[in-house]
Every structure is written in structure tokens, then in C-alpha cells.
């Protein structure tokens, strides 16, 4: 029961935000989409322990796939989401076969390289993707045939929020399933999981594919709601910032992804508006501070603080 309190509080806050900030719906929607994306990284990195800096590869594939689908085939948003998920899963499966063979630095480098290759491909295939000008002319039909996307972004917000909640519930089920537990086992000790007969390679690929599908959904949402896909969807900065959001909130906990993303994007919204370079000072210092002083993320802050008071071993306390 206690596990439900925090997610429900987040959901309540999201609903309240709609009424409290009616003029910032575009920004709120961006946060919700980003939460979906960061959740995908939480599964891959937080649960399966795959250090990725290239999750944007799947996000971007989902965005382009959903955008192209709505332009050329069918404008239904849910079908578009499914196409985005498939595209993300397909890219994750293809690249995962190579990426998961590597370890450590090579693995990280390969995840970055996959996103860089897709960036280059999208840039070259100007006729299909619009290249550096971006993919324009995305038209999306009403959700379920009932709710038309409006200028203010009301439908967009509720739509994104509904998808985010569905993804959250799905991931919550997955990480509690035997498969999710085996991912945790692999994270803790790949050697022991191999010893008890689990195929580390294939389970990591499976997790990577599920994460890829979720990232593809996030990309598809972004494409449908902003009605534009630019090359930035494959940017390294997107992958890196999303990982930072996750670390800020706390890895290996789904609510950590929600809290970290919300906080990061709110601070960015306020601080980065006029000076992107000084914003880099803020992120840089923030990341170092979290890594050194709060390795389990903000979500562990209350426990870390009580640990400081109860005994001096605050660092051990937040690992439980």
C-alpha cells in the first residue's frame, strides 16, 4: 500500500498542475513526455544495469516513425504510438545484438554511436525526413475519434498524461515480474545469474527492447503533439540529460524518474531560458553533487537525512 502513495501523489500533482498552470500546458506536456522517456532509461539503466548514453536512438526512431506514419498512412494517434513503439523496439533489438556483447566503456561508446549513425542517416535521407529542416506537416486525428487536438494543448496534455500513466503501470508490473527480478539479479551480479542458469545476454537484450519500445512511444508522443520532428531527437545531449534526470531522481525506482525529470525540467525552464552556457555550469555542478553526495538520488533524500541524524553513516543508509 505504501508503494502506491508516492505515484498517486505524483498523478494528483499532474492533474492539479493542469488547473494551476493553464498557460504553461505546452511546457507541462513536455515534462510528461520526458518522463516517459526517462522511465525507459530507468528500465534499461536502473533495473537492467546497462549504462546507456544513446537512448535517444530509440526516441528519435519512434518520433520519425510516428511522424511519417501519420503523414503517409493514417493519422490515428494510438496507431501512431504503436508504430513508434515498434520502431523503437526494432532499433533496440538490432543494435542490442551488437551492443550487449560489449562491456563498460565500449558498450557506452556503442550506444552513443548508434544514435550518431541514426542522426547521420536522418540527415542524409532528406527526401524522407526533411533533413536539417525537420519533418513537417504531421496531422493527427482526434484521440479515439472523440478528442480533437486543440491550440492550447489541453487534449495534448491529457493524452500524454494518460499514456505516461499506462507506461508507468506497465513498467511497474514488468519490474515486479520474475523477469524484472532477474534483471535486478543481473544488475547485482551477472556471474551469479549465469551460474543459476539465466541467459544474461538475452535478458539484457529483452530489457533493452522493452526500453526501446517505451522510448519509441515517448518519441511518437513528442512528434504527434509538437507536430514536428527535428534532427535534435537523436542528439547526444538528449540522452545525457535524460540520464542526468534519472540519476537526480534516483535509479531503480520508477518514481525516481518522475521526480527527477520534473525537477530538472522546471529548474531548466527557469534558469536556461536566457543563457544556455551558464546552464551548463548548473547541470555540471548538479551532477557532481548528486554523484558524490546523494548517489541514490533525491528520492532517497529523506532517508539520507534521517540517517544523518540517527547514525553518522548517512552514505550507507541511503543504499538500503
Amino acid at each position, binding site marked *: 500500500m505504501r508503494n502506491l502513495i508516492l505515484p498517486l501523489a505524483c498523478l494528483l500533482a499532474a492533474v492539479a498542475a493542469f488547473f494551476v498552470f493553464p498557460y504553461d500546458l505546452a511546457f507541462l506536456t513536455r515534462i510528461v513526455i520526458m518522463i516517459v522517456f526517462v522511465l525507459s532509461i530507468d528500465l534499461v539503466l536502473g533495473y537492467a544495469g546497462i*549504462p546507456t548514453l544513446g537512448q535517444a536512438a530509440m526516441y528519435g526512431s519512434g518520433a520519425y516513425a510516428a511522424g511519417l506514419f501519420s503523414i503517409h498512412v493514417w493519422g490515428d494517434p494510438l496507431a501512431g504510438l504503436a508504430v513508434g513503439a515498434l520502431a523503437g523496439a526494432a532499433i533496440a533489438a538490432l543494435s542490442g545484438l551488437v551492443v550487449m556483447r560489449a562491456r563498460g566503456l565500449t558498450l557506452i*561508446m556503442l550506444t552513443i554511436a548508434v544514435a550518431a*549513425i541514426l542522426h547521420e542517416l536522418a540527415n542524409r535521407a532528406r527526401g524522407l525526413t526533411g533533413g536539417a529542416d525537420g519533418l513537417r506537416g504531421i496531422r493527427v486525428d482526434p484521440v479515439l475519434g472523440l478528442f480533437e487536438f486543440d491550440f492550447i494543448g489541453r487534449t495534448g496534455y491529457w493524452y500524454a498524461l494518460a499514456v505516461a500513466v499506462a507506461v508507468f503501470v506497465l513498467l511497474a508490473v514488468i519490474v515486479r515480474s520474475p523477469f524484472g527480478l532477474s534483471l535486478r539479479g543481473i544488475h547485482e551480479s551477472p556471474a551469479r545469474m549465469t551460474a543459476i542458469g539465466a541467459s544474461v545476454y538475452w535478458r539484457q537484450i529483452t530489457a533493452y527492447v522493452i526500453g526501446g519500445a517505451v522510448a519509441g512511444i515517448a518519441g511518437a508522443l513528442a512528434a504527434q503533439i509538437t507536430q514536428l520532428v527535428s534532427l535534435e531527437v537523436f542528439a547526444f545531449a538528449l540522452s545525457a540529460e535524460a*540520464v542526468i534526470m534519472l540519476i537526480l531522481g534516483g535509479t531503480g525506482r520508477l518514481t525516481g524518474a518522475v521526480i527527477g525529470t520534473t525537477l530538472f525540467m522546471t529548474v531548466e525552464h527557469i534558469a536556461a531560458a536566457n543563457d544556455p552556457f551558464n546552464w*551548463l*555550469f548548473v547541470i*555540471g555542478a548538479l*551532477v557532481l553533487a548528486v554523484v558524490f553526495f546523494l548517489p541514490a538520488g533525491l528520492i532517497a533524500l529523506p532517508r539520507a537525512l534521517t540517517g544523518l541524524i540517527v547514525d553518522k553513516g548517512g552514505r550507507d543508509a541511503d543504499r538500503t
Partner: protein
Amino acid sequence: MDLFLNIAVDGVAYGMILFMIAVGLSVTMGLMRVINLAHGGFALIGGALAHWLGREVGLPFWIAATLAIAGTVAIALPLERVLYRRIYGFGELQQVLATIGLTFLMIASVNLWQGSTLLAIDLPPALRAPVDLGFRTLPAHRLAVIALGLAVIAGLWLLLERTRFGIRLRAAVDNRATASAHGIDTGLIYMVTFALGAALAALGGIFGAELLPIDAYYPLRYMVLFLIVVAVGGMGSIAGSFAAALGLGVIETAARYLVPDLATLAFYGIVIALLAARPQGLMGRV
């Protein structure tokens, strides 16, 4: 034939630059098991210092370059003491994040100091003068870079194979605990090695500025390139880094000459095929 020679000269020069910058990364990775994404930042600091000393202070190139390398080491040493020393024991994700955070700080600092424009480094006339090789004339700079790269690998080989420091370094790479138990000051070895890696990165950054132009975003733009060299070469292997840097330099240059439109894709394709076949790199252990 001319095309082939052009590719060879440009590719080898490019490879030497990659080697100088990446070798420090490879050695620190092999020795301290730290994934240092901020390594390109030392090339940036070296390049920015050389730009500032040359253009604004007005020092001659050679003095500016020497001071810039010394300055980079002066920045790297306290960083190793204060920051890196603490992250050696972290998990790979924490290392990646801490060094990305550091990279962001380096970028923001250089930008605050020098702005986000291109930081040109003026070469002395001796390096700009054209040299006739028979099949083409090229700036002496390319040849100097090749010579410098060869000098660096020769120097590193002598240092590792022929000095007491080299013996200790290799012992620490093989097994830190045992080396430490034999009375080797591994902390000092780490610090010296880190400083050496940063100095080489600065050297590569300054002399490579013609090929990899310096600006504030340098560490992020070329991060994948340096990581590729280390991954393909095999972590901790100097010979591996050298072979990988030269090979990749020639491959990328060849791709630019032969299939300019698809150069990036061809380059990544070859790298991924190589790593799919040998995930531990050309000369990596394990």
C-alpha cells in the same frame, strides 16, 4: 596512385592526432579503471590556453604551446587529487556521470572565458611553409604532426619498458593491490600517469587544431571519436591505441576522399563491425 598517397599522408597525420589525445584515456582506463569522458576536455583546455597565450598575450607559438601544456597539467593535477581519486572506486555509471558533469563544467568555463567562437591557434611560419613531396605539396605541419606522433609513441615505449617508473606502472596495471604491497606508491603512479595523459591530450589538441578545430564544445563533439579509438584499440594498450588511431585515421580519411557523402556512416559501420567481432578491442585483454 596520387590519391592513395594523399590518403596515406592525411590519414596518418590525422591518426597521430587521435593517438596523442586518446592514449592518455586508454592508459588511465587500463590503470585506474575509470571511464573518463572528460578527457577531451584536457585537449580543449590545452588548445584554449595556446590560443589565449598566442593571440592575446602574443607569445611565440612554441612558448605558448609549452606553457599551455604545462597549464593543462597544472589544472589536471589538482583535479586528480580532489575529484578523480574519489571516483576510482565508483561504479561505471557514477564515473560516467561525474566525468560528464566535469565536461559540462569545462565547456562552460572555457565559454565564459573565451566565448563560443572558434579558438584559432596560429602556427609558426616554419610549420606553415609548404613542403614538396614529389606527388603533392603539403604544409610542413602535417609532417611535423607525424613526426611528433612517432616521437610520442617512442617516448612512451621507452618510459614503460626501460625505466623504473614504467616497471611500477605496469605492475600497478596488472594488480594494484599486489603492487601496493610491494611498496609501490600507486597513488603517486596514478597521479603522474593522469598528468601525463592530460599533457598528451593538450599536445594533441594544440597540434591537431588544424584538423579538429578547437571551440568550447570540443570535448562533446569529439568524445565518441576518442572513445572509439580506445575501444577499438583495447583498454590500457598503448600499442593497441596506436594501431587503432592510425587505422581509423586512414579509414576515415579514405572514406572522406572516396565516398564523401557516406563517410560518417562508412566509418561507424566499420567500427561496429570490428567491435562486433572483437568486443574487447584489437589488443584488449579479457
